[in-house]
């Protein structure tokens, strides 16, 4: 019998509430006095899907981009956010990466990151200073969270310019900057997204870093739109190769960019997701690049990667143009068991939907899915699949915002600040804009960038947080009607990396086969809930579900008699001696 342990839905300090919650979670509804009072408070918006709870949560942090008359491109590109359980209390906390000052873009107060600890009552408290992660000596971009030393506590890799930093979780609410000894500084580079994944299946998480472009604050590029100073086109900047660090297991990493072949792949990389594309059990990479060909790097199982982007027809659009790829996510959008990619792009380019077709090239379903029509006017950044209503179909949450304010003087249909998009998958890989029901946030406009997904209140409904260029982030709570069932998995590797990045979960529920992956990276500059939350549709609470987990190291574990509407903490079974 495989070892597993069920985890109650709501871990609350108030145990009576927890017991009540446990009873009711089995019936698929969330009920406790706190939930009730919130429900009463939000009653007028009961039909909405998401609610902005930033203020209620006590999140007061604001991002500083260093916007200046010089219009350095970096001012318009960051920053990231991460959901992580920093102290193992079962509640997702949030880390925000700040930007930084530029030569003529100064802040009146110190530019600090934020680390908000989830207090469990809908409130958060910033502990960044206490934790030692509030100040970094560089312009911050993104964050990748993972337990690189398999000690059970998540660590932080913060990317930026002109270098990046690794913070080791000391397990006591503090972090230590171990960048130098780990050898992951990625110096002299403008790093964007990063992803943890175990490319050689040695049970230790390695790190891939996307580097954007050759950049310097001494660079005097000047661009204008209609006589007004504007940010220059990305093609004015020469791209950079990726960086790949191999985890040696002793707190040290080795730069294997050259050996892996990644050092040759020069381009303006921004987003990355690690997922097994070809079903061989080895994690591959999709890299979204900005006006450079996207990369589909297939793990050759020998420490090297081969780019098959062209043959797979994911590198360019149908006209052979490299789109402005920023964010990326992988998920099975059409339930064929293969990962499909969503990539955010610039306005008029459409955010792409690339559907896996087995051995042949990917099928660009951007137009057929409605994504072209729905995203034409938007410049997209963070993007993530999310099953907001738990119907089993992967929906999309995308955040947008243009880079140049002057766009509104040249276009009537494209705005500088843009609304996020909640796009519902109707089950035939056709998407529908849920703007009217999604919530006020989706009818408001932002200069949004990073997007992280996570069930921060443990109610089985995926929530989200996104950052904005120069201002407060937005924390969203999913308050949709819980009409469908769900199941969640928190995986713990033993011979595989502890975070189980690279795992594939196949759930069988009512003749339906749902596949999900524990991906590394994804979205833009951001990091997500390590648990895999799977919507099941109208599966009854008494149903018995089955799941198969293919662990990153290749072990396969089967689980039976699973019940919906709960999280399962699954520990990788050790192979028999």
């Amino acid at each position, binding site marked *: 019998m495989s070892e597993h342990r069920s985890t109650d839905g709501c871990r609350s300090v108030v145990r009576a509430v927890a017991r009540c919650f446990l009873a009711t979670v089995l019936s698929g509804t969330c009920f406790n006095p706190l939930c009730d009072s919130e429900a009463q408070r939000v009653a007028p918006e009961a039909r909405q899907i998401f609610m902005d709870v930033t203020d209620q949560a006590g999140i007061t942090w604001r991002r500083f981009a260093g916007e200046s008359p010089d219009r350095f491109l970096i001012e318009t590109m960051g920053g990231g956010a991460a959901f992580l359980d920093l102290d193992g209390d079962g509640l997702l906390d949030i880390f925000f990466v700040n930007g930084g000052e530029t030569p003529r873009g100064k802040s009146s107060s110190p530019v600090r990151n934020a680390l908000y600890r989830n207090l469990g009552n809908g409130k958060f408290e910033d502990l960044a200073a206490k934790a030692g992660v509030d100040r970094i000596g560089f312009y911050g971009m993104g964050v990748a969270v993972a337990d690189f030393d398999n000690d059970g506590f998540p660590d932080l890799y913060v990317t930026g310019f002109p270098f990046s930093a690794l913070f080791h979780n000391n397990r006591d609410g503090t972090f230590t900057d171990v960048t130098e000894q780990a050898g992951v500084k990625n110096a002299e580079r403008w790093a964007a997204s990063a992803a943890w994944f175990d490319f050689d299946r040695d049970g230790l998480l390695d790190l891939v870093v996307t580097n954007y472009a050759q950049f310097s604050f001494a660079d005097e590029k000047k661009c204008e739109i209609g006589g007004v100073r504007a940010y*220059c*086109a990305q093609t004015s900047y020469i791209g950079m190769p990726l960086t790949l660090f191999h985890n040696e297991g002793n707190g040290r990493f080795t730069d294997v960019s050259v050996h892996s072949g990644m050092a040759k792949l020069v381009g303006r990389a921004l987003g990355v997701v690690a997922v097994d594309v070809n079903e061989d059990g080895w994690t591959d990479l999709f890299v979204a690049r900005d006006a450079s060909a996207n990369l589909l790097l297939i793990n050759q199982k020998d420490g090297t990667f081969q780019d098959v982007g062209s043959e797979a027809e994911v590198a360019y659009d149908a006209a*052979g143009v490299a789109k402005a790829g920023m964010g990326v996510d992988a998920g099975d959008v059409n339930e064929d068991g293969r990962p499909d990619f969503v990539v955010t792009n610039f306005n008029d380019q459409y955010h792409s939907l690339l559907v896996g077709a087995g051995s042949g090239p990917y099928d660009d379903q951007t137009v057929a899915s409605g994504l072209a*029509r729905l995203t034409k006017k938007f410049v997209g950044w963070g993007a993530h699949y999310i099953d907001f209503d738990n119907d089993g179909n992967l929906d999309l949450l995308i955040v947008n915002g243009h880079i140049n304010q002057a766009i509104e*003087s040249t276009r009537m249909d494209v705005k500088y600040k843009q609304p996020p998009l909640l796009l519902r998958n109707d089950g035939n890989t056709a998407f529908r804009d849920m703007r009217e029901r999604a919530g006020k946030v989706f009818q408001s406009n932002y200069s949004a960038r990073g997007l992280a997904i996570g069930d921060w209140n443990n109610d089985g409904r995926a929530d989200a947080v996104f950052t904005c260029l120069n201002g407060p982030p937005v924390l969203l709570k999913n308050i949709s009607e819980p009409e469908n069932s769900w199941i969640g998995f928190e995986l713990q590797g033993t011979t595989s990396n502890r975070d189980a990045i690279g795992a594939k979960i196949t759930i069988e529920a009512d003749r339906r086969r749902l596949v999900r992956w524990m991906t590394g990276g994804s979205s833009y500059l951001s990091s997500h809930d390590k648990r895999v939350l799977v919507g099941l549709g109208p599966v009854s609470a008494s149903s018995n579900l089955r799941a198969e987990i293919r662990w990153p190291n290749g072990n396969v574990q089967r689980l039976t008699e699973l019940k919906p509407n709960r999280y399962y903490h699954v520990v990788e079974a050790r192979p028999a001696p």
Partner: protein
Amino acid sequence: MPNLSVPRKCTKLAAAAGLNFLLALICQASGSPSFVSFLTEKQNDPAEAHLQQGLRLAQAGELQSAEGELRTAVRLKPDNAEFLSSLATVLAIEEKFDESTSLFEKALKSGPSDLRSRRHLAANLWQLRRYAEAKQNLIIILKVDPADSQAKLLLGMVSEKSGDHATAVTMLESVPDLVRRQPEAVVALAKSYYRTGERIKAADSLRALANGPLKAQGALLGAQVACDMQDYETAETLLSAIPAEFSDAAAARYCLAVVKFHTKQYQQSEQILQRLISAGQKNGEILRLLGWCYHKTNRDEDAIRTFRDAVELNPTDERNFLDLGGLLLEQRKFAAALELANRSVNAFPASADALVLLGSIELATERFTDALKTYSRSLSLDLNNAEGILGLARAQAGAGMGDHARRTLDEAIRRFPGRAPFEVELALLLLKESENGDSNSQTRTEELLQAAAKHDPTLAEAQFQLGELALRRGQTALAIVHLENAVRISPESARAHFALARGYRRAGRAEEAEKETVLFEKFKKGDAPGATSSPSNVPPNE
């Protein structure tokens, strides 16, 4: 993108020949017996006296004085058809065509059967490029006198100018002696032969020019026409027959440089031009062609420098501005292109092409609202400017005014049936709309592309888009046919190779797909700074 004015014409001989033709026509008529006998009648009437004096002065070549006398005669008898006709004739010789034309028209109102006046009127109208009216009058003449050789000659000339080449050939072939005597008529016949597919006859006509009384001058004129009609072999043959001591040797050498350029012998063309410059023949046209040679051999900085020299040397030649502006735009040096375009618009306020250049730059930098205004201005100057119409539609589409763009293109198709670029542009617009969910557009899109391909089989874009549509529908074999056509027409088109690679891949032709991918990589703009970028992006100022 404006039509870059790659030099085609070697000299301005053609224009000069046209005027000579008109004068010849009129002088022939003036020397006729009926004209001379006119002189001796009715001398007692003061008006008649002025008329007689005017005619005598005209025959003596004193045209200004003749005009004065004839004006007096007309003032005294304003409705006299003969007086009006005589004054009109003298004015025509003086190149005062507008006034001459209205006087002939007035004369014909009183005396509609005056074939001579009608013939002169037709000649004026031809000179004024009012070809349809010219044609009308000539048809009237030929109905009355089908053997009127002058009218046939002129009708042939008019037909050639108005694109009715079959009629031009018929008419001009019917008066061979007259044609032989008039270089412009020979040119018209040759052009019409070219346009009706009779290349050998065309070449023969032009060779006859070289062997005729004009000799070397005729050879040069013939070479220019052949070059214009892309018969470079004939052009080069004619040029080779021009002796080195020819008085206009520089013009002949320049013409040869043009021929070499168009036959892709860029180095040779460059050498000829450099020699001309060294010999002190530096002018705007030579510099422009040299700039084009540099461009074609990937020395764009040299090309820009040379085009700039042409502008500075001859700032009154708009083509210098257009070529430089076009290259700066192609190189995405938008700030410099914009500065030049604005200078061009100020220097040539009545030029639609200058505004089209400016509009192109505004389009490229996505200043759609500005481009809208600019293209609208260009069309107010020249309603028939194709680039202006296309640019306006693109600006409208870019600014989010899709309905307007559609109307602009629909109207253009209606006004200019068979013009493939409009059909393709509308198809592209509808394609975009169909991507945005308007499925009704798809059928019409395909119809437009098929029509465009039929109207202009050399239009790579139509083939490319038809191929793309077929690929989307899974009609791989059909897609490959269209895309192979696209690649054949436009062998340096990166996206055509890319799309063809996709087609081959789907057909399981992996090796061919790989070859096309290599070609795609070769021809696409790379990741270097200044390369093609996504929209709404602004490259840096220089």
